[in-house]
């Protein structure tokens, strides 16, 4: 496994190389070249793209793994905040229920 810094620098260089190899200037340079040169150029570009995919996946995978490690804290925070909201709902419901009950009692008391 290569160090992240070396991997990221290599990926940057691969990106630059890939852009050069997809540019109009590159295509112009290949005009009139023999088939074996064209084959080598095509293969080189294909391998550069494959390497980009691989190193890009390694870089994103690293970040993904760190994001996942942080999920417990986020879930805990979300759950605790939800509990506070639920508690407010329960208080309001309880007061509402008490209110309804007291109104019934008030009517009974007034009849006595």
């Amino acid at each position, binding site marked *: 496994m290569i160090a992240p810094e070396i991997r990221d620098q290599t990926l940057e260089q691969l*990106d630059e190389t*890939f*852009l050069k190899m*997809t*540019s*109009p200037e590159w*295509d*112009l340079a290949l*005009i009139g070249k023999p*088939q074996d040169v*064209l*084959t080598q*150029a*095509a*293969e080189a*570009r*294909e391998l550069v*793209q*494959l390497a*980009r*995919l*691989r190193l*890009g*996946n390694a*870089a*994103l*995978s690293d*970040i*993904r793994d*760190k*994001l*996942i490690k*942080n*999920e417990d*804290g*986020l*879930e*805990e*925070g*979300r759950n*605790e*905040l*939800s509990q*506070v*909201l639920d508690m*407010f*709902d329960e*208080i*309001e419901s309880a*007061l*509402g229920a*008490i*209110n309804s009950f*007291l*109104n019934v*009692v*008030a009517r009974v*008391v*007034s009849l006595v």
Partner: protein
Amino acid sequence: MSFAPMSKDTRITEAVFKWNTTAVLVLTLLSFVASSCGAARTNQFKQFSQAGTTYTTAVIDLIDASGSTTIDADSLELVEDREHLTTEQRKRIVDHNKELRTRLAILGDMKRHAHLLNSYFEVLGALADSNAPSQIGSAADGVVQALGKIHPSIQNAKIGEAPVANFVGDVTQIVVAHFKAAALEAELKKRAKTIERELDLQQAALSALAQQMRVDLQAQINRQESKDIVLPFVADGPLPGAWSSERRDLLQSQLSLASVDGAADAARKLKIAFVALAEGRFQLVDVPALLSDINEIVSLIEKVEGKQQKQ
């Protein structure tokens, strides 16, 4: 006519009555002042959580666009090179497919994570925006009124000259509002490191995605310029009928890759906003600028999707 001097008991009762009324007035005034400060702080939480949900929603779409762009750039390269590759070399398409599937799986995990972050910001916003103080205050009012119907002494109870029934609702509202504000502050304190770390990772994720999108998109633009404009012009023979208009369209509608930089910057700005919130420096005037950066993500996605539709 003579007047009897005030008895000691009467003087004491009068003094207590004056103190009670003053105390009630001072406490009520202090409560309203505290309530106003609490409301401003709660509003900061609300604004920050709104920025957070806007950001995560945009990131979820960006992740999808990133996957499509990567696949398209890879397909374009394979199609261009195919005629010059040998059969053995062409078989490497399975390696490309394998890497793309890996990429999509990673992006899937990142998208799921973004949904979790979104739900965190949503519930934070729900608490900050909660109408519970007012609703619970009204409910408490209702209880006092209902009690008053049962026994008039409750209805007529006073502190000083002020009927209790008049301010139970308001005081309850203030107490619940303070509890809500305290819950938000407690959450901020408890979760500060988690959120800071999260926003640092979001910066890294967005930078990596944005960089790869930039190269993939530029490669597609390069291929189009080569294939449709430059090579037909250099070759002998007549130009395609639409050559001039295609050249104009290509040169004028160059995909602005500045949106890529803006998108990558959004996570950094969101973190700055979070640190400001934690340190009590969050300014509501900063929110539009933050949302503008987040909108760069949306703008980039729209441009990518527009380009994909043309293809």
